[in-house]
Structures are given as C-alpha cells and as structure tokens.
C-alpha cells in the first residue's frame, strides 16, 4: 500500500489555503502586479502591505548586518506603511482576487485609534474582496509616534479595545499581528484574544540599530546624516520569533490559530514554526533578498520532508514539538552526557581545546601522545613551547625524512583528549568543532531515575527560599 501523496493545502482560521507560504505585509506585497507575480511563483497567500492614510518615506530606509561573508543576516528598516492611496490599494486587491480567487489575500490595516476609522477601513477592505484582515499593531517606527502601530500593540487595553471595534464590523477572520517589542508577548496576545481575534500572527520587527559608520560616526540607515531605531528581521531574528511562538502556544489564554513570522527563508525554517504550532508562515526578508522564486524550494522541500516522514497534511505534524518545550524546572537533572572526540574525523584545529580551557571547564587535554595523562599543561604553556620550535622549508632531496610526509592524516599529538570524568557535558566543544560529527555528546549511564528541580523542591530537598529564585524567564 502506497502512502497518500502529501498535500500542502490547509485551513487557517476558516480560510482555505493552497499552501502555508504567505508573503508578509511588506514591500513584496506593495501592489497588485507584485502580488500576482508572487502567486504565479507559487506563494499561497499575501498579506498586503499595510493600508492606511498614505505616508511619506525617508531615504535611505534599509540597513543590514552581514555575517562572515553572508549578506543580510539581519535586516532593518525605518519604512512606514503603504505610501499609496487607500483606494488604489483596494482596487488592486479587488483585481487580484478576481484573477486569483483561490489564493489568499489578507488586508493589513492601520488607521488612527478611532472606532469609526476602523469600522470604515474594515468595511472597505472586505468589500474589495480581502479574505481576512490583519491588524498591524506592531510597526515600531513613525506610526507609533502617531498613536498607531506598536503604540497600540504595547498597551494591552488598546489592543483589546481596537480588536473589539474591528470584530464589531468584520465578516472575515481577524488576525492580530503582534509586536515583539514588549517584555512578555503573552500579554498583548491575551488582550487580542479577549478582544475576539480569530487568529494571531507573530512576530513583527524588533527595535534595533544595526550599526554605526566608523568613518562618519553616523548610524545606519543614513538619512541625511541622522538615523532612527528601526525594525529588525531576517535570519537573525528567527530564534526570538520561535520562542515567542512557543510562548503563545503554551499559554491557554493566548493560544489561537497562528501565522508564524520572523527569519523564515527556507522550508526548514517554516517547518520549525509549524512544529511549534503555526498554521501558516509569512516571509518578508528572504523574498526581498532573493525574490519570489524561493517559494519553489519551500514547497518542494516541505513536501519531500512530509513524504519521508509519512505526513499527509500540515495538521499531521503541526505542534508536534510543543510538548518538548518545558520550563527549566521540569528538565531531568540526572541526564548526563560527555563529549567524545572521534579521532578519525578530527583535523587537529584544537579549537575545542582552547574553548574548553577558556570558555568551559578545562577538561580537554593535549596529552594523547604522553606516557601518562598530564593535566597541568595550560594553553599558555603549549603556545610558548611551539614558539621556540625552529623550522625550515623541507627540501625533497635534502630532507629525506620529510619527503614522505603527508598532511592527509592528523598527527596524533594534535588530536585532543576529553577527560570524561570532569566533562560537564555543556556542549561547547561540539558546537565549536568545525567538523560535523567529530565531537559527539554521549550519554553516560548514571543509573539514576528522572528527577527535576520541581520534584526536588516538592520533596523538600532544596533549602527554603531557593525555589522562589529559580523561577523561569517569564
């Protein structure tokens, strides 16, 4: 019996989706022509660049962080919402929906915090044919100074109230897009839920200053010599977004259908968001970096992965990782691993050695070729020894002993050794090692049953007072 062919089609708060890949509200969804080209490329949906009273943008308005040759690891903008008239945007939405009835078009909205203004824009967006509404409570720059965007998203009462106003009018699902610029994402999430939101999307961009020009002392992006804090996104923000997604999903008062956003650039990233419970994902920076075409691999990769794992639909694996994220106090204190270096893979860079000495617990040593373990040699001593070594260029004919030398095998004296009795299993060395699988973390059996901090506290094994201090980061 052959497995069913996997499908990417799914439903998100009642909206039928061809696939979970949406373009986030941003420059890639600025106009109808773009959105139609994106749909042709394979995107399942688009959240229209936020519509509201047209604004004037500054230039420049983007800056980015490059990391070791990789461009745009982190991206930053001080752009505002759409600079095009509301009517034009709505006409184009109507046109797109007429031509692409099966694709999802969500109208992202932001207007002044008045009930009538929201009622009005909701009505017009739905009349244009939008499949749903996304309330932009996140924009951290420019709009917040006008009492909109994150000025709303950061105040739970406003969040709840405006969501309520929108719900009074809306016939289509209402998605509240959350700002991460807040200490606990669950607070605005709960407020949106109380206000009646049908779904959430997270995260919007994170307040940032990407850098300062060391020649001119001017920050980026440069607007006539000055700058302003902007919104950070792209690969660099994914870990933050994943954490916020998990926090929302693990909180009964917050949880709603969720569209995950933040640093998604491939099917792998998207799958991680879905495993933490997201129904759809939204992409901005990756599409700005490489164009719409990236969605081809997103669909292809996800389908292949689903096929390999035997998942027929998104729902089959959505949220599967949620039970694996616990609070620290619930983790097993008796689980013990140690580092093991695989001699055959080691290239002798000794990064693990210096990392464990300076950054961890001084339990990697360079005494493999010594007669007896020598734990007294420090990195400083090792370096001083080799500084005194005198070498010359090996000349084949003159130096017979060096002619057969090969650099294909790592000399034993360069391969470090882990003192397993002292290794605390912190993992640092295996993260530092440039060779995949060269350092593995192996479980050592201590014959001890599962025991968490919580249990220790319950058994009264912990001094009174300590349990209070050990609360989570919430």
């Amino acid at each position: 019996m052959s497995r069913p062919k996997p499908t990417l089609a799914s439903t998100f708060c009642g909206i039928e989706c061809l696939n979970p890949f949406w373009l986030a509200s941003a420059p890639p969804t600025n106009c109808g022509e773009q959105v139609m080209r994106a749909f042709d490329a394979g995107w399942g949906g688009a959240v229209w660049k936020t519509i509201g009273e047209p604004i004037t943008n500054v230039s420049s308005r983007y800056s980015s962080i490059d990391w070791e040759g990789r461009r745009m690891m982190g991206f930053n903008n001080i752009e505002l919402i759409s600079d095009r008239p509301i009517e034009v945007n709505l006409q184009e939405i109507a046109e797109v929906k007429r031509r692409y009835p099966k694709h999802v078009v969500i109208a992202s909205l932001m207007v002044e915090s008045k009930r009538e203004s929201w009622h009005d824009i909701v009505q017009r967006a739905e009349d244009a044919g939008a499949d749903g509404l996304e309330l932009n409570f996140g924009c951290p720059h420019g709009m917040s100074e006008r009492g909109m965007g994150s000025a709303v998203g950061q105040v739970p009462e406003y969040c709840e109230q405006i969501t309520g106003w929108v719900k009074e009018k809306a016939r289509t699902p209402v998605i509240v897009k959350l700002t991460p610029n807040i200490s606990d994402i669950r607070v605005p999430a709960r407020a949106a839920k109380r206000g009646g939101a049908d779904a959430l999307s997270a995260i919007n961009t994170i307040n940032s200053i990407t850098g300062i020009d060391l020649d001119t002392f001017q920050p980026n992006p440069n607007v006539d010599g000055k700058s302003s804090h902007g919104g950070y996104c792209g690969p660099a923000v994914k870990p933050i977004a994943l954490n916020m997604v998990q926090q929302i999903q693990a909180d009964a008062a917050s949880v709603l259908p969720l569209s995950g956003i933040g640093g998604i650039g491939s099917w792998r990233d998207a799958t991680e968001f879905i495993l933490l419970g997201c129904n759809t994902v939204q992409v901005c920076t990756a599409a700005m970096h490489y164009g719409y075409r990236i969605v081809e691999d997103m669909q292809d990769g996800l389908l292949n992965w689903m096929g390999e794992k035997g998942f027929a639909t998104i729902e089959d694996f959505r949220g599967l990782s949620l039970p694996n994220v616990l609070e620290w106090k619930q983790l097993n204190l008796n689980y013990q691993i140690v580092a093991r270096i695989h001699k055959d893979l080691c290239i002798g860079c000794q990064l693990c050695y210096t990392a464990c000495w300076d950054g961890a617990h001084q339990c990697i040593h360079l005494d493999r070729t010594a007669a007896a373990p020598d734990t007294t040699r420090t990195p400083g001593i090792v370096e001083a020894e080799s500084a005194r070594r005198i070498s010359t260029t090996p000349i084949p004919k003159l130096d017979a002993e060096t002619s057969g030398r090969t650099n294909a095998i790592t000399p034993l004296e360069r391969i470090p050794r882990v003192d397993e009795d002292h290794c605390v299993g912190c993992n640092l060395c295996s993260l530092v090692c440039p060779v995949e699988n060269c350092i593995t973390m192996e479980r050592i059996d201590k014959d001890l049953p599962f025991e968490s901090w919580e249990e220790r506290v319950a058994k009264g094994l912990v001094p009174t007072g300590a349990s209070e201090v050990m609360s989570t980061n919430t």
Partner: protein
Amino acid sequence: MSERVPFPLQIVTAPKVAERFGDLHPPFDRQAAVPEANRCLYCFDAPCTIACPTHIDVPGFIKKIASGNLSGSARTILDANILGASCSRACPVEVLCEGACVMHRYNKQPIQIARLQRFAMDALYESGAPLPFEPGAETGLSVALIGAGPASLACAAELRRRGIRARLYDARPLPGGLNTYGVAEYKLPLVESLREIEMLSQLGVDFHFETRIDASGLAELERKHDAVFLGIGLGAIHQLGVSGEALAGVTNALDLIAGYKSGSLTTVPERVVVVGAGNTAIDAAIAAVRLGAADVRIVYRRGAEQMSAFRFEYEHAKNEGVKFLWHVQPTGVRGDRVVEGIELTKLESTEDGSIVPQMGSEFVLEVDLIVLSIGQATHAAFLFESSSTFGKIQLERGRIVIDRATGQTSYPKFFAGGDCTNGGREVVDAVADGKRAGIGIAKWLEVQYVQT
C-alpha cells in the same frame, strides 16, 4: 634623510619583459579576501604558524583581515617577518604554511594564506603608512653585515629595532640579493622587492653598494664594529667541466634571471637547454620560455623522483611547455665561436646503485643557449684565504656552522645566516635565520657590555 633616490626608482624597467612575467597568483580583492579570511578556523597553536620558518601568527593576521584591521594585520606579519611581502610571493607555501593547514583534512582546500598575506602587505603600501616600527634608542653599538640579501636585511631590522647600528655591504648596485635579482619575476617582481626594502630603510639601515669585501676588508670591519654578520649567500654556479664550456652562449641560471629582471636581457634564442633540475633550473627554463624561446629542455642526470625541485614547480614548468630529458649527462659543448650543440650521454644505474654512462648512447642536441644550474659553491674560500682569525670559523661541507637559535659561529664575534649556512634554501629560511641572528647578536652584545 638626504635626497637619496628611492630604490625602486633606481631601476630601468623593461616593459615588454614585465608584461610577459605577469603575476603567477593574481592578488585578492576585498570581496575575495574577506570570505577567504573568514574561512580560516583560527586554529589554536596553529600548524600553519609552526610550519612557517619565521612563525608568523597566521590565524592572527588572517582574522584581522576579516575584521577590516588591515594595518594591524600587516603589523602582525612584519613583526615576525620583516620581508613579509616578498615571502608572500616567493614562499613555496605548498610545503610550508598552506601545506600544514588543517583544511587539507577537512574540505581539502587549504586557506590561501600567501595571497591573504600579500593582500595585507599591499594594503599597507597602498595606505602610504610608514613601517609600523621605530628604531630603538641608540645604544652606540654597531654591526657590519656582509651581503644585503634577505638574511642580512632581517638581521638589520632586528638590530635597528634595538638601537644597534646596522651597516650593510653588498657587491651589487641594489639591495635584496636573491629577492631582487634571483626570484622569478612572475613570483616576485623586482620592484616589489625594492619597495619593501625602501620601507625597511626607514629604520635607518646604512647601505653600502658595489662594495666587495675581501679578507682585509673583513678584518677592518671586525675592528670597527662590535659584531659582524655574514649573510653572503652562495657563490658562483658550478661548471660542467667539459670542453667548449667557455663558448659564447653558455650562461648560468642566476645570470639569466638577474639579467631579465634588471632589464639587461630581453630575449633569448630559439633553442635553450637548461642543465640541472632544481627550483632555480625550473625558474630559468620558464624564463626562457617567456623570453621567447621556442624549444626549452631541462636535462638532468637522474629521474623526476630525484630532482630537488618541488613537485608544483615541476608541474608548473610542464604547463609552461618545458620539456624534460631524464638520465642524461652533458659530456661536451659543440660550436665554433658560439654554442651550436650539447653532447649528451644516457645514464643507467648499475646493480650497486651507482649511475654510469651507457655505452654508445652519446647524442648531440642542437641548441643556441645552454643554461647551467647544477648547484652553487659557497663562499667558503673567501673565509679560508682570510687571516688566522677567520680560520677559526668552523665550516662543514663548505657551509658556515652556526648555533641555530642565535646564528653565532664558532668565532663569537661573527654571526651568520641564510644560504651560506644552510647550503641554499628559501627566502623565508634566510629571513628566519637573520631574525634569530639579529636577536642573538643583540643579546650577546648586551652580555658583553654588562660585563665591562
């Protein structure tokens, strides 16, 4: 300083020749250098640093390129190797730093250390910044250095940084020794060698050119200075010892290379034979190809396995069109007034391992130019003919014996380094020797003067 003409401006360049000897390894631009620098793992106690005879902190200077600290990178290089620019071009990195790079065992591509080193050095020159070192406070001590090649230059730099006067004497009109006159132009252009030494001269080294030091001159230098450094390199290239060797059209590899580099030689005739198969022979053969010869052959007594040239040099020569004739020995040179041919005999190995001429295998190769590159003598004779003092300097197989760590000879006031002590190795070995000797001399002098 006076209106001395900077070294690089003292040379006549031959544009045609320069054109034909374009860079073997083109320089990096920033877009390529930074990702390459980031590829370096920053190994602890890095094997590349150990493999470099001057022990340049390779990961250190590479990471500074990655961070955009180019002046710091150049300083890190120069601190260990004052001729870092020349070495970045002339070093056989395949058997040195890059050969030792751990990346051979990872994705098989070593970090391009030499090109990165050149990138940092070029950036320093282009910035117009001075050498990032200053002469030490004058101590009143002085050292005479014989020969202005890499060993002496490196030694002089160490001395100047410690406030010791350094006086260099060289028989040639320009400094640099083999760096300037002997390294193939597509590796190290003559101007680059001079540009580097010009910078070094900011430390206040005294140069005395076209001054040949004989035995009595040496005795005088010994009297006038607190120590003497011998960086005299090697002597003349060996002769074949066959008839016809004195004909016009017989030259040697060093003269050929020095000739085209300094612009006095711009073409060679059609058919060229190079005798010998060391790195210098390869350089000469490739030079002949690039100077216009149609047919260039290397003849060697043994097989490819026994030649002293590096493997990659051999491959390079083949790529340039040089042909190799193994197991043959020149037995005579034919010609009337000029060379017309070279008489060769095939060799075969006997049961006891020795190689002997093969009976009746003689043949003649018609050639227009014969280039000898069969090893060099040392200047040992120069020391022997000297007065009793120099007789005290211990020699071994023609090489000056030194203490490897300090460069000191058996006669304490004399130090030595480079080819005259090791029989001919790489530029970087000479620099390392010179550096150790410079430090050694300074330490030794300190002891001498503390005692008084």
